[in-house]
């Protein structure tokens, strides 16, 4: 028989150092076994094949001056960024009067500043709502004019980036609370409310956005009392909001369903009312579960605003078509498209990065590391 074992505590020590150089890293990540090595070589070969010609076209042989003759001379071997240099104001601001274009510029800068500020969590206070109202009012005053000696610019002349920004921001800002109400309504104990919410979501989801926009712009006026008109911009805005909210409501509902029932019971047992429970316990948890999906819907909504061209509004993509209407430059549509795509990409990529950041930020402390 052995003697009773003595318990000897082992001192805690730091984990092994993760020192590693370039070569071990490459070996482990790119050349680990023949499959991995083969994949690495194929990818490198593809890059070697594609990148140099692309670089030649986009940079080396490209014409950056707004010089039509030079662009035509260089032919297909070089890009003509001149089209952007020549037309950028038309692309960015559409048919807004040329001499007044400082107004949409200032309006957009204000709006972007507000959006950036709203991303920062310590600013999520009551005054932020006031800031939104103020900035939106300033946006419309600047764009429309008619006060402070600003000339009137009718909404049909609004276009380009300000239109894209305004449509997407406003429809998202209005769709978000609406979608929360609809998602809550779908779980309501009152059959009437539940039915309305289900019908709304299913109807809107079952119809292409183009149809919704057509209806908003052409059918809606038929239902209005005679002589009463609502600006087409507002009708379109309502259409976008309803469409986005339907999708968003399903996303939010997913978050609500993922919340354990015990959370609501605990809140109820403390005497919290339905709305207190919803506001303090349910939504903060449900929404942070679905941040990526919410942002996905936002990004989709942002890009969907390009569909307003079908009801003769010239958002960023529509304004590009206007710019390419100039027969001298029509040939260089690809460069124009790339420019517009780049503007969209910058915005969407920013949203995507923000989504990842805020998700991590909101979960500080609430998950075990």
């Amino acid at each position, binding site marked *: 028989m052995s003697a009773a074992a003595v318990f000897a505590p082992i001192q805690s020590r730091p984990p092994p150092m993760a020192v590693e150089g370039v070569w071990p890293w490459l070996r482990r990540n790119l050349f680990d076994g023949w499959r991995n090595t083969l994949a690495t070589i194929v990818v490198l070969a593809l890059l070697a094949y594609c990148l140099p010609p692309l670089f030649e076209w986009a940079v080396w042989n490209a014409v950056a001056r707004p010089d039509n003759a030079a662009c035509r001379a260089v032919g297909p071997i070089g890009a003509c960024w001149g089209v952007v240099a020549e037309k950028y104001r038309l692309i960015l601001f559409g048919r807004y009067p040329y001499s007044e274009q400082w107004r949409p510029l200032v309006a957009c800068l204000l709006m972007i500043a507000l959006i950036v500020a709203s991303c920062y969590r310590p600013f999520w206070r009551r005054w932020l709502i006031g800031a939104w109202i103020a900035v939106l009012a300033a946006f419309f005053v600047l764009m429309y004019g008619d006060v402070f000696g600003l000339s009137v610019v009718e909404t049909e002349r609004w276009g380009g980036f300000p239109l894209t920004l305004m449509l997407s921001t406003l429809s998202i800002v209005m769709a978000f609370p609406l979608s929360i109400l609809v998602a809550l309504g779908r779980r309501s104990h009152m059959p009437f409310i539940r039915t309305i919410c289900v019908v709304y979501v299913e109807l809107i989801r079952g119809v292409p956005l183009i149809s919704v926009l057509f209806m908003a712009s052409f059918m809606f006026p038929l239902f209005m009392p005679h002589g009463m008109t609502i600006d087409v911009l507002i009708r379109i805005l309502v259409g976008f909001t309803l469409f986005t909210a339907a999708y968003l409501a399903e996303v939010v509902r997913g978050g609500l369903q993922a919340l354990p029932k015990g959370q609501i019971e605990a809140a109820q047992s403390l005497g*919290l009312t339905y709305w207190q429970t919803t506001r303090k316990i349910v939504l903060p948890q449900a929404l942070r579960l679905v941040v990526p999906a919410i942002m996905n819907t936002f990004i989709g909504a942002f890009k969907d605003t390009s569909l307003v061209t079908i009801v003769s509004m010239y958002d960023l993509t529509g304004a590009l078509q206007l710019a390419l209407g100039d027969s001298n430059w029509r040939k260089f549509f690809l460069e124009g498209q790339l420019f517009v795509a780049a503007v969209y990409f910058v915005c969407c990529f920013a949203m995507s990065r923000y989504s990842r950041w805020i998700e991590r930020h909101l979960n500080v*402390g*609430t998950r075990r590391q």
Partner: protein
Amino acid sequence: MQAQAPIIEFAKVNKWFGEFHVLRDIDLSVARGERIVICGPSGSGKSTLIRCINRLEEHQEGRLVVDGVELTDDLKAIEAIRRSVGMVFQQFNLFPHLTVLENLTLAPMWVGRMSQKDAEERALQQLTRVQIAEQAKKYPLQLSGGQQQRVAIARALCLTPKIMLFDEPTSALDPEMINEVLDVMTELAKQGITMLCVTHEMGFARSVADRVIFMDHGQIVEENSPAEFFSHPKSERTRDFLSKILAH
């Protein structure tokens, strides 16, 4: 002298989940300050019974009066009753997105309309009572199970309830942590609060309870003093149950 009115009174209470008859003709009255332990096999309706008291479940037949107010669909009455009834759950159900302190101040501030300062003072008192004040700034998931359950007890106490309901408060805990929670509960029992506790901790029942209730198939099979309950159970069914849970 006239006996004080019971603080909780069930009279022929019946409840169904769909077709399933989960509570059958429940008659039970609980005196102020009384400590009751409820036990019985799984699925016998223990949780449902105590959840009826703060209306997390609705009964369909019979009368249930809590602290002088009959439970009906009247939302205001329900909210008032919930303010005077604290509940502790098997799974703790702390709010993971709030710190321990925020978990405790939530109800005093929003239900009790206290200022943040007063609510925090109250919260710290309760945390001290369950001996966990130093964890106030942490988030629930950063605590051990036993600590979380003690926070949950403190949270329920923050509105100074007259009645405390416990639904198997120790069965999700590792054995090492069970005692720290039972100690807190025993301490609480000494202070004269009305307690209803679903538990299979028979040691706790023996030392703390005024009355033990045994349920099976949605019925109250037996109620008895702990001494009698364990030594001379009245019914065959109780004896059978006790032999199973006390066998080891």
